[in-house]
């Protein structure tokens, strides 16, 4: 006869959220840029922000950098972003804790009604998706670039930034 053991995993606390409503286009909207402070994230974000603004008629209205990637966006920084931006581009998730907390930040902004497009590297895309799903977001708008970001030259970063502009924009507007 077989025997039983106690399942050591336990149940999962499920939540379900929808992302914020998306605008039809970005024309005339204010883009906020949230740099998670990872090495070279700024270079990618500057390129993406400038390219999207030029392409769509949006403006980059606010750009800030978190004091550490491995913690949530500080409350004052979060509140200021809500005031100064209609949509938000953030990144870059290129490691475990920075990806996780970027997804948490994304969830908080989406809950507050701000569409977010989060840039992650391909190596950490699955983790970002898993964290988003654990928080109840099953259609998280991720823009994926190739790993790594750190240690690259400026021209390589510009190429990577330009390459994901369409994907970042697509995450911010209604499909």
């Amino acid at each position, binding site marked *: *006869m077989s*025997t*039983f053991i106690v399942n050591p995993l336990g149940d*999962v606390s499920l939540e379900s959220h929808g992302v914020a409503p998306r605008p039809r286009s970005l024309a005339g909207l204010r883009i906020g840029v949230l740099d998670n402070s990872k090495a070279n994230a700024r270079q990618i974000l500057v390129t993406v922000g400038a390219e999207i603004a030029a392409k769509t008629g949006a403006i980059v209205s606010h750009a800030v950098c978190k004091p550490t990637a491995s913690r949530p966006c500080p409350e004052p920084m979060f509140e200021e972003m809500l005031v100064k931006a209609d949509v938000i581009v953030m990144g870059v998730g290129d490691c475990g*804790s920075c990806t996780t907390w970027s997804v948490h930040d994304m969830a908080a902004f989406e809950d507050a009604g701000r569409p977010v497009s989060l840039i992650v590297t391909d190596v950490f895309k699955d983790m970002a998706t898993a964290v988003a799903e654990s928080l109840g977001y099953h259609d998280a708008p991720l823009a994926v670039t190739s790993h790594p970001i750190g240690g690259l030259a400026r021209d390589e970063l510009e190429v990577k930034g330009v390459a994901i502009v369409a994907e970042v924009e697509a995450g911010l507007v209604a499909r």
Partner: protein
Amino acid sequence: MVTPPLPSGYRVSELLELPDLDGETLLAFFDERGWGDGLPLIAPTPTRVEAMMGPLASKPNDVLAVLPLRRGIVTRRIAAANAVLAGCPNGLLPIFEAVVRILGGGKFNLSGVNPTTHPVAPLVIVHGAVVAEFGFNAGLGSFGPGSRANATLGRAVRLLLIHAAGARPGVGDRSTQGQPAKYTYCVAENQSGTPWETYPASLGITSPSAITVAAVENPHNVHDMESDTPERLLDKFASSVASLGSNHASAIGYEIFIALCPEHAATIAAGKWGRVDVQWYLYERARLPAAVLKEAFHSRMWPRWLRRAADGDLIPMTDRPENYKIFVTGGEGKHSAVLPSFSLAPSSVTEPLEVGGV
């Protein structure tokens, strides 16, 4: 395979069916699912889990925590099942539960600790009367093998993180190289070897027992056989702390744990120095020139005061003396350790512990 009747009090999803309880069968079962830590396990039969819960078995569904990233709900029964798997002796569960509550509480950054590429593991430090009562090793080899209480409590933490929190290597645990301390990481404070008030007492916690959970790296050895003054001894700790390879050099403001051996603690105390003197001395002496830090790191993670420093200014490796967390552990000999932490302070939580006969 003939299925036996379901034990009373369980839902089907709470149980797993095995052909037998042979150790190799159990290990293979876990290995096939990516569960466990790769080492042999004790089968968490309902009988053993009930025994682990002891007098609290009447409340198996009390929720202790919800652990990220998987958002696993840790009930008393789930905690007990992992304690059995780890080989914990019956009776240890209330201490493990205290650890679980800290891990899942809002003060501990488990959402950062579990998935990070950094080689961090939650270190459990056991303080006070429960050390002797449950047989934790605070003396010789306290970070090492040989004590069932240390080994299994630390292992129960890891197994719970793998199972309930989903921190499987390569999935929810993305540590670049992993870490031996991720198998088990539990130590006890050597109270009799501490020339000052205990570590919890230094934080204002005066209960007979307490638990600290700290997000730190493995111990980095600090060897000193010669020094007969606090200054000469602590300069070696300062040298170990002021390392460009540590995360705490890249963003000033981390906790840094200092695990003093009793002989080093005695040398410091003989100079009439207290714990606060050690904290201030390390704050003053563990420094690097601003030019060196600017060359090594992007400065965007630095506070504004640091960005304005002149090249020759000596920059402290953390932004306040109290971020040096000083406790005593170990036995005879003159080897202590520095334990760098994972992220900006706070990286540790200390709570009173109300268990056992104390």
